[in-house]
């Protein structure tokens, strides 16, 4: 089926021969990787290499030019609308800027999927919303409108909405961009706990090296030059054993000491 066969069992998401393009402009081609159940999977790559595009292709917002993506063995693009929307109901997706509905308060935003897909009472929904908001540190902001909140709060609110229904599969588009280091560490911690507690699989688009190395259990590295993936696997293992030079260099920069700055362009090394 593919030239890259995962030796692990129980893949939750399988991407096969994926090629993405805008018109005739190819973004990435021939992507093959597996995301296993319970993985915290990172999609890594430089700016503009198509990380967000890959995410949008995987969730059906943009149709790939070629290739398939399988969820629990079900092909997404060959499924009918009912199957697709059943899959979508089990996912939580957060967007770069939060994508909150501006006409609704924060509590209404988070409550929306719960109201749509469960028969819980109003009181129970309110309690559930309060809990989700306190998880992301936004307790007390229930009655605020998105316009009254900061960008970082939008992000966390978007996360609260995405995890409202305890999804099986969580997609994050740059979750920690725009967050302070402490919040972003809390977010990492939260992601790990959600995975552990609910058995969720998480796919994260990010270039935050500390997050990738500390919580990532699996990753795919995209490359803008060759327009394909460089390697896939556990980032901690790839740090030492990746077949690709670029991946090893990229990861090793994250594990370097803080007071040691490596300048890539002319290989100048400054040690304080």
């Amino acid at each position, binding site marked *: 089926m593919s030239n890259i066969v995962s030796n692990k069992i129980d893949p939750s998401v399988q991407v096969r021969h994926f090629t993405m393009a805008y018109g005739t402009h190819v973004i990435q081609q021939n992507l093959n990787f597996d995301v296993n159940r319970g993985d915290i999977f990172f999609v890594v790559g430089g700016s503009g290499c198509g990380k967000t595009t890959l995410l949008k292709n995987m969730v059906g917002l943009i149709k790939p030019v070629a290739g398939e993506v399988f969820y629990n063995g079900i092909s997404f693009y060959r499924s009918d609308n009912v199957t697709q929307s059943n899959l979508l109901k089990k996912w939580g997706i957060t967007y770069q800027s939060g994508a909150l509905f*501006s*006409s609704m308060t924060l509590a209404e935003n988070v409550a929306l999927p719960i109201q749509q897909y*469960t028969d*819980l009472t109003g009181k*129970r929904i309110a*309690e*559930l919303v*309060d*809990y*989700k908001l*306190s*998880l992301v*540190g*936004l*307790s*007390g*902001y229930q*009655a*605020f*409108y*998105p*316009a009254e909140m900061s960008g970082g709060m939008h992000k966390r609110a978007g996360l609260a909405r995405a995890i409202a*229904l*305890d999804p099986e599969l969580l997609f994050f588009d740059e979750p920690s961009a725009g967050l302070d280091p402490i919040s972003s560490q*809390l977010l990492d*911690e*939260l992601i790990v*706990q959600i995975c*552990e*507690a*609910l058995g969720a699989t998480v796919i994260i688009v990010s270039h935050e090296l500390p997050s990738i190395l500390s919580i990532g259990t699996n990753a795919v590295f995209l490359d803008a030059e060759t327009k394909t993936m460089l390697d896939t696997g556990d980032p901690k293992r790839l740090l030492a054993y990746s077949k690709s030079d670029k991946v090893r260099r990229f990861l090793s920069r994250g594990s370097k000491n803080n007071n040691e700055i490596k300048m890539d362009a002319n290989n100048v090394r400054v040690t304080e």
Partner: protein
Amino acid sequence: MAEPSYIAKTEQHSIELHLKGDWCIEQQTPDLLEKYFKKSDHCSHLYLINASIGQWDSMLMVFVMQCVFWCKRHAINLDVQQMPPAVGKLLAIATAVVPYQPPSVDSSAGVSTWLGENSIRKFFSELKKFLIFIGSLCNTFVKLFGGKSSARKVDILYFIEQVGPRGLGIITLVSVLVGMILAYLGSVQLRQLGAQIYVANLVSIGMTREMGPLMTGVILAGRTGAAYAAQLGTMQVNEEIDAIKTMAMSTMEFLVLPRMLALVMIMPLLCIYSDILGMIGGAIITTGMDVSWTQYILQTQHSIDLVDFICGIVKSLFFALLIGIAGCQAGLQCGRDSTAVGSATTSAVVRAIVYLVIADAAFNILYDKMGI
């Protein structure tokens, strides 16, 4: 799935809640109710114990949060060490940040305040904004005529294309139909007197002095005014307007002026176009009723002169200004979310049409007093 439930065991210094079943969102999970247990005065701990919890999701955490709040109210310690380990970790995250207490808002203002004071204040603040906008627009025009404007030529051409050529289709359709409507309206009455030929007068004067400017105005208010408000509103949301301001460029010169100029230049032309098409529409109806084309054209020539055309064109110039002001002002004062863009667009169209009708009435009174 087993029904989620808990059993309470009350001790001297503690309460134990033994939880069992599947605490899932599909289930009816119980609330923490004091009727199930009795809190002694010396009680210092609430233990949550995993008796046999099967599957669980956030509904278990909702119950745990109820326990947290209950314990806080009664100053009791909560112990979740005998729960699944993730519960304690999730709880730690959920209680890591102190809940924000929004300051209480004084809502003592009554209906009379809302009706009277607030609406009057709102009216005056709107009036002030309107006058400020007109003032800075005048400044910008003065600068333009002094040859110092930084508006980009290509912008002006782009907006001229948007307003003019791309709006011709809809203006053609509406003008011909309005001409026909006028002709029908007149012919039904005038036929009784055998004076169908005067339909030509009605249509030509009606189109040039009234319907031509008004209908192009209404179309442009819906087409162009709304587009301006939506464009500028979206630019506000995307922080593009902030970028222009912080580059020390004037939003008036850079954004408003090209749009206003395009409208003011094109609207009179569209008005003349609409006048002529309206008369053709009228002719199509009238020539079907014992009036020949020659008669209709001759009668039209007799009934109108340049003054009628100029009256209409002057009106349309002012209408263009008003539509532009309504659209640009609504766009620039737009809020920063997608709902605000919608209301800015609505407000642009509604205001433009109200301005049009008021200005039209004023012009008619003016022309009457001037005797033209």
